[in-house]
């Protein structure tokens, strides 16, 4: 039994072929077997060759072409996510938005990629862009590629163009600054150029406060183009909601601009400016220039308009400076409020004649009080008044007022005022004489406002400013400008005396055009001949102005209107500028709800 077994199966199996041969009795391999062997070898060969080929390809892909393929893959998989980070908005003191950023698109056309005819594309674009298809077709025929069809396409229109799926069109996103009040506050706001750089106004001076920083984030994306947000840095979506708030009030600004525009047109004047400033803290509530420009289309305007001449251009203030001279004389003790001076109507200082503006009709007025000198705007009276002071002392006081320096406003390109040298001023008697009635030196309108504000706030020199600070949506302050603390120059007693005199100018003097029944307004007119840069004065060119401070019982605002070169014989500070100040004050009264003073003004305790 045991001899027949056990069968070792593998061995037996191997012996199948060998055992079969003797059984068949055929010695050579049959042709089928040989073919099978060849076939095996062939299959093996093919497989090995295939593996080898795959290996070579692997080598090529992984090693030879690896860098370029990796780069290509990264290009397809990686994308930069550029969130829309707008430049901060600018709002006025009431929160009315003056400037915001919008996304806009530039539409390019590449006619060589068009699958439709140019005419068909022009027709379809015409309906989307609301333009005539003829002009569009002309544009499209200019080149084969890279035609800028339109620079600022709105987001909605861009969406519609994208939905139309016209081959050969390209939309490139960019940011665009939008000034919603058009030209209303252009002189303060300035504008932003295509490189996102502020070029004038607050946009220039507060560039760092307005810009938001945002780095584009590199993200992977899926084949369908969806973003894979796993590599987003924390706080990526958090954009602060800060806004730059100005001290401007668009209601007052609008009233100021309207009144100014009307007067400038009426008198055919070259230009004009109105400034409304809070006397207590120097915040500017309105600053309007005429002519002005629309910052949305700044490229269509003359470059000269981009400077704000209220702080860049110097002018001789004329009579509006007289109250300050009175204040200096009072403060130094050279005169008393009830001092009297002889107004001869015409005098000679050195060889120079000085006369009152109405000398030819009125002649000499004789003995005048200080109040009367201001009421009649007597030049001779002012010369006599200033002569009570030593020229050196007078000069020191002019310097103390800040003449010859900048006021430090937070708007760009401010000019420093011009004052003669101390030596020249002291040695030549004509210098103090002309300075007494506001000529022979020059300052900017903004500096005159700053100086006049002193008369309203008890003698402190405040810094004019337009920026209130950065505030978030809930009104929380984030940053506020560091302003110089008010510098006391005059005593409140002096300023109150001068203010009382200025009130008389309005109630019973040259400033009567600014009267508003029931309200106490102090003011002073100014009509100055324009200085010729080549020396002397122009005969007919004059600059008229009016400065008003109100309400006298508790001064809050100083309003200055300056009109450059009004035409006509009747163009004076009282006729051209005073009505502007009046209408601006009326508007402020209405906005702030300031009740009229029904009772007669009682003398303030000194």
């Amino acid at each position, binding site marked *: *039994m045991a*001899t*027949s*077994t056990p*069968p070792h*199966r593998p061995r*037996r*199996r191997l*012996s*199948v072929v060998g*055992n*079969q041969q003797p*059984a068949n009795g055929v010695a050579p391999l049959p042709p089928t077997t040989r073919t099978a062997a060849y076939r095996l070898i062939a299959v093996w060969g093919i497989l090995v060759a295939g593996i080898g080929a795959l290996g070579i390809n692997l080598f090529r892909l992984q090693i030879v072409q690896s860098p370029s393929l990796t780069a290509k893959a990264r290009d397809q998989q990686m994308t930069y996510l550029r*969130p*829309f980070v*707008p430049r901060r*908005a600018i709002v006025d003191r009431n929160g*009315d*938005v003056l400037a*915001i*950023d*919008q*996304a806009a698109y530039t539409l390019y056309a590449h006619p060589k990629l068009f699958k439709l005819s140019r005419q068909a594309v022009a027709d379809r674009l015409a309906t989307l862009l609301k333009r005539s298809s003829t002009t569009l077709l002309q544009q499209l025929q200019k080149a084969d590629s890279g035609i800028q069809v339109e620079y600022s396409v709105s*987001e909605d229109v861009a969406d519609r163009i994208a939905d139309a799926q016209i081959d050969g069109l390209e939309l490139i996103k960019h940011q665009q600054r*939008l000034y*919603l*009040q*058009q030209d*209303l506050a252009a002189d303060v706001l300035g504008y932003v150029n295509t490189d996102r750089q502020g070029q004038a106004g607050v946009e220039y001076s507060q560039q760092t406060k307005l810009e938001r920083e945002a780095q584009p984030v590199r993200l992977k994306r*899926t084949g369908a183009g*969806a*973003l*894979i*947000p*796993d590599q987003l840095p924390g706080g990526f*979506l958090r954009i602060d909601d800060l806004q730059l708030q100005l001290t401007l009030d668009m209601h007052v600004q*609008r009233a100021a601009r*309207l009144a100014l525009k009307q007067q400038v047109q009426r008198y055919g004047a070259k230009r004009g400016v109105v400034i409304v400033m809070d006397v207590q803290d120097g915040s500017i509530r309105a600053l309007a220039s005429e002519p002005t420009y629309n910052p949305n289309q700044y490229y269509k305007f003359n470059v000269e308009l981009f400077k704000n001449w209220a702080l860049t251009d110097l002018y001789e203030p004329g009579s509006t400076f007289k109250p300050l001279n009175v204040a200096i004389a009072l403060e130094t003790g050279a005169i008393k409020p009830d001092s009297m001076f002889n107004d001869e109507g015409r005098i000679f200082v050195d060889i120079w004649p000085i006369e009152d503006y109405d000398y030819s009709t009125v002649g000499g007025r004789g003995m005048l009080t200080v109040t009367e000198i201001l009421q009649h705007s007597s030049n001779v009276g002012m010369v006599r008044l200033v002569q009570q002071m030593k020229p050196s002392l007078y000069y020191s006081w002019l310097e103390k007022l800040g003449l010859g320096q900048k006021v430090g406003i937070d708007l760009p390109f401010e000019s420093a005022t011009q004052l003669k040298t101390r030596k020249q001023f002291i040695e030549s008697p004509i210098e103090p004489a002309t300075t007494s009635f506001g000529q022979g030196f020059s300052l900017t309108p903004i500096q005159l406002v700053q100086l006049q504000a002193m008369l309203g706030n008890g003698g402190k020199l405040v810094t004019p400013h337009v920026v209130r600070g950065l505030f978030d949506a809930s009104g929380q302050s984030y940053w506020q400008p560091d302003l110089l603390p008010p510098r006391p120059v005059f005593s409140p007693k002096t300023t109150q005396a001068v203010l009382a005199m200025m009130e008389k100018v309005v109630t019973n003097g040259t400033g009567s055009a600014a009267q*508003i029944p*029931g*309200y106490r307004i102090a003011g002073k007119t100014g009509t100055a001949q324009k200085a010729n840069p080549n020396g002397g004065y122009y005969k007919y060119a004059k600059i008229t102005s009016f400065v008003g401070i109100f309400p006298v019982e508790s001064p809050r605002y100083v309003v200055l209107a300056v009109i450059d070169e009004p035409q006509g014989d009747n163009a004076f500070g009282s006729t051209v500028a005073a009505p502007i100040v009046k209408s601006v004050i*009326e*508007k402020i*009264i*209405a*906005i702030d*709800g*300031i*009740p*009229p003073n029904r009772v007669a003004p009682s003398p303030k305790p000194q």
Partner: protein
Amino acid sequence: MSAGLKSEFAYPRRGTSQFATGYPIDSRRAVPPRGRSIAHSAAPSRTIEPHLPPVQPHTASPVRRLHSRPTPLWLQSLLALQRSSSVIAFFMVGGVLLLYGQTVYTQQLWNQEYQKLEQFQRHERQLTATIESLKNDIAQQAERPGMGFVTPSAANTIYLQPTSAAPIPASTPVPPFLPTEPMLPMGY
């Protein structure tokens, strides 16, 4: 080949004798491999067929477990480990799939929400722009004469004198509530 066939018939018979000798029963053995039968056919003289007892029916011998030795502990623990790890692997694969799905879904959701956010921000900007433009337009219209707008001024404003806060008399006796009319029900 006929000899081969014959020997195949002989094989079960030989096989039955093997049951007795204690060889393990194997169902595969019941179908003999081809090679084996050929090997037998090569030596037919060795056949011991005539001495075999008559064929017993299969049912007659009871099926016994041949390896009665108990499975060793290490094998048991390995088997348990394999079984439990399979279960764990199954759940982990499920978890991974779930997590992957979740991730993809979240990303999709993020994309949707991000687009929504951008849309909202855009609407906010557009609304602000529209409101301010409208304000500006209305104000400009108001500036034109003959539009029927009245500018607020001191003349058309009514000023109310603030009432001076009168001091409340401290010791005013509160009059006792005395009904002047007979209290009647208001009606039902």
